[in-house]
């Protein structure tokens, strides 16, 4: 029996799951189909008057050249009593530590899911108040995805991953975001775990924006990008 189910994801990518014979042949179609047959997660477009004058493109590589975003290279250690730790115990020097992640396309994660921004800033604020070291990062086009061919073949690019040493928190974020893939991996260092491929991000300016407030600024995610290793002077 031919059963067609359509689901529009954040990237406006529509998947059509065909009959059993075509079960492994993934068919992609643009999301121009009947609106009633799909669940759209797209944010309302934004009128020109509300767009900031800054260029709506962002070089992932260039952001690390700016001293304002450079931070010392540290592992995530919570400076509270061990029974109050919200993140996993920090790894010892030579021990590989586990990193948990969820991933989806950049458009969905950074442009459409506005409450995702609120959550990350809320958590960052909390860590600041409690003097805890940040244990979560956003990685645009992460290199670790190469280890997950089953995930990469299901991702629209560029992709963005939320990475953390706190497994339960990633489980919670998966529950919240729903339209994301999640897994975990081990890495010898934070630098290795958060390695990325330089990418320019560009999101289309929405044609129409009906919310009674402006959209979050392009580039809001900068505070969550991986820390930069400071060069050691001889």
């Amino acid at each position, binding site marked *: 029996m031919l059963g067609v189910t359509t*689901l529009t994801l954040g990237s406006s990518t529509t998947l059509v799951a065909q009959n059993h014979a075509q079960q492994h042949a993934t068919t992609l179609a643009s999301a121009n189909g009947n609106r009633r*047959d799909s*669940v*759209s997660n797209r944010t309302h477009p934004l009128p020109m008057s509300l767009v900031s004058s800054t260029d709506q493109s962002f070089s992932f590589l260039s952001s690390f050249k700016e001293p304002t975003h450079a931070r010392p290279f540290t592992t995530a250690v919570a400076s509270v009593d061990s029974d109050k730790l919200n993140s996993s115990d920090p790894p010892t020097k030579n021990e590989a530590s586990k990193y948990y992640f969820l991933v989806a396309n950049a458009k969905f994660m950074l442009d459409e899911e506005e409450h995702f921004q609120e959550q990350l800033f809320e958590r960052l604020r909390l860590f600041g108040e409690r003097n805890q070291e940040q244990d979560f990062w956003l990685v645009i086009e992460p290199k670790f995805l190469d280890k997950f061919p089953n995930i990469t073949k299901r991702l629209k690019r560029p992709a963005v991953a939320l990475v953390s040493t706190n497994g*339960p928190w990633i489980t919670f974020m998966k529950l919240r975001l729903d339209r994301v893939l999640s897994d975990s991996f081990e890495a010898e260092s934070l630098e290795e775990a958060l390695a990325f491929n330089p990418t320019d991000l560009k999101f289309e300016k929405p044609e129409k924006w009906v919310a009674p*407030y402006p959209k979050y600024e392009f580039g809001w995610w900068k505070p969550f990008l991986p820390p930069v290793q400071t060069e050691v002077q001889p």
Partner: protein
Amino acid sequence: MLLLSPPQPQLQPFFTSLHMAALVKPISNVTPKFVSSPRMGSSHSSKFSTIIRMSATATPPPSTSTKPASSKKGNIKETLLTPRFYTTDFDEMETLFNTEINKNLNQDEFEALLQEFKTDYNQTHFVRNKEFKEAADKLEGPLRQIFVEFLERSCTAEFSGFLLYKELGRRLKKTNPVVAEIFSLMSRDEARHAGFLNKGLSDFNLALDLGFLTKARKYTFFKPKFIFYATYLSEKIGYWRYITIYRHLKANPEFQCYPIFKYFENWCQDENRHGDFFSALMKAQPQFLNDWKAKLWSRFFCLSVYVTMYLNDCQRTAFYEGIGLNTKEFDMHVIIETNRTTARIFPAVLDVENPEFKRKLDRMVEINEKLVAVGESDDIAVVKNLKRIPLVAALVSELLATYLMPPIESGSVDLAEFEPQLVY
């Protein structure tokens, strides 16, 4: 928690039809009673604070306010304090989440949620300052009354959430300690919100007698399945209402006429987390999400919550205009965003982005306005009821037509059979 319910008696026929006789079991009827008492700790003995109570009498007694005439404080409309207070089948709830009976419960999600609630992001954030009293004193005339009404309704809704969650936390302690603790932590959040709002009322020399409210409240019985649907929607729509107001006022600070709105950013994140928990509860009981009945109930609860909010808010346009919002545009934005969020768990949702949906809502507003006018007329009761019949019929007809609009198939990708083929 945002429990949307009709404060006006004129809306009662609409809600009778909407909640379906089989679904709702009222336990006791309550009407509000107002008792004036000296304000404790006040340096001026002439100042009085109105304590609002709920009485189980059939008709509200006259106000016994002895407040000096010089005071600017007015009496509160008696129909305001009748939000739905929910109760449920606690035995069934215990069975649903008994870890020994249900071996396949996804405890990972519950453990993750428990950690998130234990984190208590807003432990130190609901702290008042002198701005509150100053802002309250500046509010005059109708706008002042509107804000009092807003605080009362919000406080009562938060308090009703506290009561439900507290009882669930107590009852599930043995069968599922993790789920029980989450309910207890959510009741902590709701109590914090209700207390904060009640403190706000004190700036207007008013206070809700929450203790009395607990004993004399009106309960509506919902089966656990319906509690999940209704409360999930209440929490998520609460998030979208609060974040929309917060972001609007941040962009337009000239409308920031009362400081409570500055707290909405943190507040709404609590609401969102509560909604996430109900999402996990439903995912743990896929029988509530994966059949044709679930689709019908999902659409019914979406319709119920959206229509209630729209009709309620259209009777309170002065409040939204007071903070610089267009009521209908605000409501449609909230409905659309809530619907998109809800589509990540409910198996079917309404097609709220179809222009016909808004047209139907607007027609319901017109009919409801006529119902209100009939209720306020000087006609005798029999004549009023006769005039109401065609209006109620028209309202039910619009509701049915809206319900029967082609829905949108939806649901969590975790429960989708075709998930392995999705592209993210």
